[in-house]
């Protein structure tokens, strides 16, 4: 049964065209996925259905729901529909809840607005609904006391409290870890079955789409480029853009032999029995301070030229380990050495060691001082040298060329570059001192799939042209597999598994690794056709 029909939806915000002739149908009890890269108009389509478009928005076309056209419905009537007949879940669970109200009262609010339930009744229903979405904390808790996954459950409980006919979930799992993502997706699927709801699932992640969707709509720059039953779209892909997306999502840089040479005499990076704890706030005024173990007896080695991956979910200690290896923070126990020299030397960094290491961060927008030109940004690590190289401009030009940019880019400011270009600049900065080891800290996680594929190729290439070891840190098992020889799995500050990449993926030993692999959404192989 058709629940919602979007026909010829065109949207302008002010003078800017956002959507063109978008068509979409949603069936009760089915999951309709809308997918596409950032800027494709996925979220705006959802907001148009909700009637929550920003000021200055102009729409034409029809959105038929329950026999009426939502675009022609008055605001008070829309208020009655929102939360009652159509619920919505947003991407960012950390900010989607009001911090000053308890989670129970926020769920109860949905019930109280639309029904005549008394406060006590509404709270009781809210508590039931929180249990239904699998939340095991009492309803009198405040949002800041909950984890991201728990908060997303509260948001879902709020959206489905009145069993709406349609639920719109806008990137509901993007901000969550893979294991949490799997549980939330399972929850959404079971709710769809139980309530016979229609679900619009908006996500950029094709693997998620392939896992759960009944029908798929692919969008690009405000237009629908392809839509149809999931299996057809995935197996008999018609539109070149969808094909490109699928190819990029399952992209594996061709396996390349690392830069071959005689085995060097140096031992590389050696992390031995490292423990790092942070004090937690005292629970009582005079009570003993508890400590949080961010790193718990961690040992690992990276030989010269070796490509190592590190996988773990948020809070597992990845960032702490990065900082410790880079010599930015001391550790309480254990040693970290690079070619035999300790990386942390108090307030005065040991330049000889630091020179051999560089880092590329996740956020292409936060990694650069917006007030400096690219040439200066790229050459910042020369601070580690005793004297600046005399042929500086040539080296900068070379580094930019190496990462696929042009020498003239050195005179531009960072805001003139796209996210993918910025990551190239970040890699150029990391290469400028010819380091032996680069740490890629979630370096491709913030990028769209097609850009991500290019950056992965670039990283894979680097290791073939010179002897370069790297530690590739990611929460995404898929990308780690593509670019590493060996992989480490980290959980709660411990390394729980360490082995050759193929072996870990094919025959995982530790239960946590198995759980991670099972939870990761899977894009079927037929996509390669």
């Amino acid at each position, binding site marked *: 049964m058709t629940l919602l029909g979007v026909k010829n939806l065109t949207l302008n915000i002010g003078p800017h065209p956002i959507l063109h002739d978008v068509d979409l149908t949603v069936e009760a009890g089915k999951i309709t996925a809308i997918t596409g890269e950032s800027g494709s108009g996925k979220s705006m389509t959802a907001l148009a259905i909700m009637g929550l478009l920003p000021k200055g928005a102009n729409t034409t076309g029809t959105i038929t729901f329950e026999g009426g056209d939502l675009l022609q419905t008055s605001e008070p009537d829309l208020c009655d529909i929102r939360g009652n007949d159509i619920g919505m879940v947003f991407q960012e669970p950390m900010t989607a809840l009001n911090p000053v109200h308890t989670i129970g009262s926020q769920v109860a609010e949905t019930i109280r607005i639309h029904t005549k339930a008394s406060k006590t009744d509404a709270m009781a229903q809210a508590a039931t609904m929180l249990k239904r979405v699998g939340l095991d904390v009492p309803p009198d808790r405040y949002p800041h006391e909950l984890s991201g996954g728990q908060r997303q459950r509260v948001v879902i409980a709020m959206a489905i409290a009145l069993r709406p006919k349609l639920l719109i979930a806008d990137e509901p799992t993007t901000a969550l870890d893979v294991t949490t993502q799997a549980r939330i997706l399972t929850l959404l699927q079971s709710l769809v079955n139980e309530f016979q709801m229609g679900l619009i699932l908006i996500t950029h992640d094709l693997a998620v789409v392939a896992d759960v969707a009944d029908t798929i709509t692919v969008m690009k720059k405000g237009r629908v480029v392809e839509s149809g039953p999931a299996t057809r779209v995935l197996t008999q892909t018609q539109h070149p853009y969808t094909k490109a997306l699928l190819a990029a999502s399952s992209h594996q840089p061709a396996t390349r032999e690392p830069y071959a040479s005689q085995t060097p005499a140096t031992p590389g990076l050696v992390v031995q029995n490292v423990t790092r704890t942070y004090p937690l706030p005292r629970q009582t005024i005079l009570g003993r301070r508890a400590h949080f173990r961010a790193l718990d007896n961690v040992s690992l080695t990276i030989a010269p030229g070796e490509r190592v991956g590190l996988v773990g979910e948020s809070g597992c200690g990845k960032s702490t380990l990065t900082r410790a290896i*880079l010599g*930015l923070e001391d550790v309480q126990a254990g040693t970290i050495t690079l070619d035999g020299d300790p990386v942390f030397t108090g*307030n005065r*960094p040991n*330049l000889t060691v*630091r020179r051999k*290491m*560089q*880092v590329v*961060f*996740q*956020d292409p*927008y*936060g*990694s*650069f*001082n*917006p*007030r400096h030109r690219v040439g200066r940004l790229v050459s*910042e*690590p*020369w*601070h*580690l040298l005793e004297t600046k190289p005399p042929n500086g401009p040539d080296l900068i030009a070379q580094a930019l060329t190496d990462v696929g940019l042009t020498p003239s880019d050195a005179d531009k400011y960072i*805001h*003139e*570059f*796209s996210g993918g270009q910025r990551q190239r600049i*970040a890699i150029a*900065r990391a290469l400028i001192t010819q380091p032996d080891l680069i740490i890629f800290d979630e370096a491709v996680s913030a990028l769209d799939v097609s850009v991500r594929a290019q950056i992965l190729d670039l990283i894979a290439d680097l290791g073939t042209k010179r002897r370069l070891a790297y530690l590739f840190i990611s929460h995404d098992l898929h990308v780690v597999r593509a670019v590493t020889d060996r992989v480490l799995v980290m959980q709660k500050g411990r390394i729980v598994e360490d082995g050759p990449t193929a072996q870990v993926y094919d025959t995982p030993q530790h239960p946590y690794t198995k759980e991670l692999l099972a939870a990761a959404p899977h894009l079927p192989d037929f996509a390669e056709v």
Partner: protein
Amino acid sequence: MKLSFYIGAALTALFLALAALSFVWTPYDIQSLDIPNKLQRPNATYLLGTDQFGRDILSMIMMGARTSIAVALLAVGIGIAAGVPLGLLAAARRGTWLDEVIMRGNDLVFAFPSLVIAILITAVYGASATNAIIAIGIFNIPVFARLSRGAALPLWERDFILAARVAGKGPARISAEHILPNITNLMIVQGTIQFSLGILAEAALSYIGLGAQPPTASWGRMLADAQTLTAIAPHTALIPGCTIIAMVLGLNLLGDGLRDWLDPRLRVDRT
């Protein structure tokens, strides 16, 4: 750029020009008394009238602009010179005892409104424009210290700072190279706001006799002199009052305009 910004800039420029002009020329000499011509309403000879001693009010406004601007500007200078380095230091050493001491010190100064500081100083050293500068300046220090620390803290969490640390740069160098240039706009905007507050504070201090002393002209003391005359010669109170309002309003409009223009949050940072 909005109209209000241009109005603000024009008003500010007008008063700066009047103050500058007063160094070389004023319509009349404000030191000489001219009792026969006292309390004249604004007319062709005395554009803004005269006060109870027959002094030309326009000339006094010009001389007073000099005092107001000098006091407020120097007080902002003290605030920036001491406050910004303190704030940067606290941010660079965030979470340590030094940060705590600086922030507690700021809280402590906030407990002393600039008027109370002026009272303390005056009680011991007597009243003067210098004391007004010190009193307002001391109050400005925690304003800039808090603001610069607050703006620097999120910057310290940014990856480009981490990249600079990986490049072996120390906290002092990072503060100077990466933090300071990124908070300068904010300091300029706050500087205009503290400038306008300084004009108001200077007027209040000289009104109650804790600021500039005779024969230095000041807007606040013109109002104090006019207080008993409002019924018979309202212009003696209205003109200096409206002057203060125009100057403060001008600075605030300028500050708002600068904020809209300089605030990076309002600019699009995408390609």
